[in-house]
């Protein structure tokens, strides 16, 4: 779709897209190297400690922690990527082009979302380099790699959908960024409060709502339909809310 393609090229022709891409690659590389060094240290320890050698595992020691660390970066990256999607159009009035063209509000929203996902995929693809290095030097489980990537994209998509929604609420990109970051973080760390609660319906609900618990399963290589449905529901809900919001923009 044209709107999506335009958004991707907008990321490629403005500094913001490249800055986020560079920051992401930098941090990902950092975590990767840290992971490697820790693994190296653990291997050296294992020479003297045969029990530790059993624990040595590329999947558990590099892949999973790496993607775990990346989640926090994703929270910020997704908020930063999505903050401009609608807010900028409203500020520059470029949104008038979209609103007065024969396209539905839902098409505008989905187009914007796909554009953001498209650029997110480009960002994610930079990590193939490290995946390749691991493949060459070790034996990571392709299944775990796959489910981590799936979780990564689903989480990224969910965060972008939240960001897209907050971007439609305001003309101010910084406001959009902060609000989406706050909402994202809330849902992300909701699981922590769950751990403090007594067992019961509330605890189950809170833990179900938290992104963390669903992402953890995927990062362990456990593909559960309920986790995938969780993320897709989130995306669907926020895209729907954004569509309503864009529809409302036509009326004021």
């Amino acid at each position: 779709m044209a709107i999506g393609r335009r958004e991707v090229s907008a990321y490629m022709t403005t500094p913001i897209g490249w800055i986020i891409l560079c920051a992401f690659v930098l941090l990902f590389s950092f975590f990767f190297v840290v992971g490697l060094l820790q693994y190296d240290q653990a291997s050296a320890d294992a020479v003297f400690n045969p029990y530790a050698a059993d624990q040595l595992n590329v999947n558990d020691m590099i892949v999973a922690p790496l993607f775990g660390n990346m989640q926090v970066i994703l929270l910020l990256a997704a908020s930063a990527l999505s903050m401009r999607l609608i807010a900028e159009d409203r500020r520059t009035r470029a949104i008038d082009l979209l609103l007065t063209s024969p396209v539905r509000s839902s098409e505008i929203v989905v187009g914007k979302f796909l554009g953001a996902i498209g650029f997110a995929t480009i960002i994610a693809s930079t990590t193939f380099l490290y995946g390749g290095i691991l493949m060459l030097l070790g034996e990571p489980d392709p299944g775990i790699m796959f489910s981590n990537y799936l979780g990564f994209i689903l989480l990224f998509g969910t965060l972008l959908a939240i960001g897209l929604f907050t971007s439609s609420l305001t003309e101010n990109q910084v406001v959009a960024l902060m609000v989406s970051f706050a909402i994202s973080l809330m849902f992300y760390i909701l699981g922590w409060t769950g751990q403090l609660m007594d067992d019961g319906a509330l605890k189950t609900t809170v833990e179900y709502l938290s992104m963390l618990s669903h992402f953890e399963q995927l990062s362990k290589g456990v593909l559960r339909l309920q986790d995938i449905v969780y993320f897709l529901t989130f995306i669907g809900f926020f895209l729907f809310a954004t569509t309503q919001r864009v529809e409302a923009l036509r009326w004021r």
Partner: protein
Amino acid sequence: MIEVQGLTKRYGDTVAISDVSFQVARGEVVGFLGPNGAGKSTTMRIIAGSLGASAGTARVGNHDVADDPRGVQAILGYAPEVPPVYTNMSVRDYVSFAATLKGVDDVQAATKKALGRVGLDKVAHRLIEHLSKGYRQRVGLAQALVHDPKVLVLDEPTSGLDPAQRVEIRNLLAELAEGDRTVVLSTHVLGEIEAICSRVIIINRGKIVAQDELARLSAVGRAVKVEVARPGPGVLAALQALPGITGVDELEGRYVVRGDEDLREIVARAAVPFGLLEMSGRERLEDIYLRLTAGGAS
């Protein structure tokens, strides 16, 4: 082609436009005139489908804007006052993006044609952010006519331009208005209306205060201004007694007599006994505008 019936838009307690009704026939070029904040943009945005009305209907072609906005937008080109451009795109990319959004079949050909029409071929590769205001305004126009719409709605297409650019855009508009394209444009530059439009709608404080053929509105003799040597109630009575008049205004010893036909001869005859000093039978558009919108500027 455009039918607007009882259009009203309220923002909370503020009424932007109230009960605006007018029609524009196919091929007509209509000027929308009024002070800033009179409701011109509001009306145009409602017709273009980027704003909902609180009450009333607007139809373009055979489509109702509220029920079938996409049907309207497929045959309508709208250029808002601020060109809705993405400044980080090149002119060509932007216009072809607009063409795609508007569902044009041959995007490349349509883009080329639109760029040619508004004279942007030479800067097609440049980023919009590097263009002057006049060129940006043209990009806004190119976007509005890329799908060769039957109806063009242009909100102040010449605002913020220097006189040379203004003339260029005006010539362009005159060109666009040829054929059976229907054009509605708003402006507060009266010369523009006189140069391009066949009919004018004057709006003030959200209400239509006059709409008529330009030729009829400022026709010779329909408003006669007289100055007499001995003003007084007698003059007023004599003028009011004239056949075929619709009203007499008195202003510092001068009288303005209005009617639907050429009143010059009968007014002259009635005024001579009081010492006719001066008489003029032509009311300029500017005077009409100022009279109708008096006190409405904000």
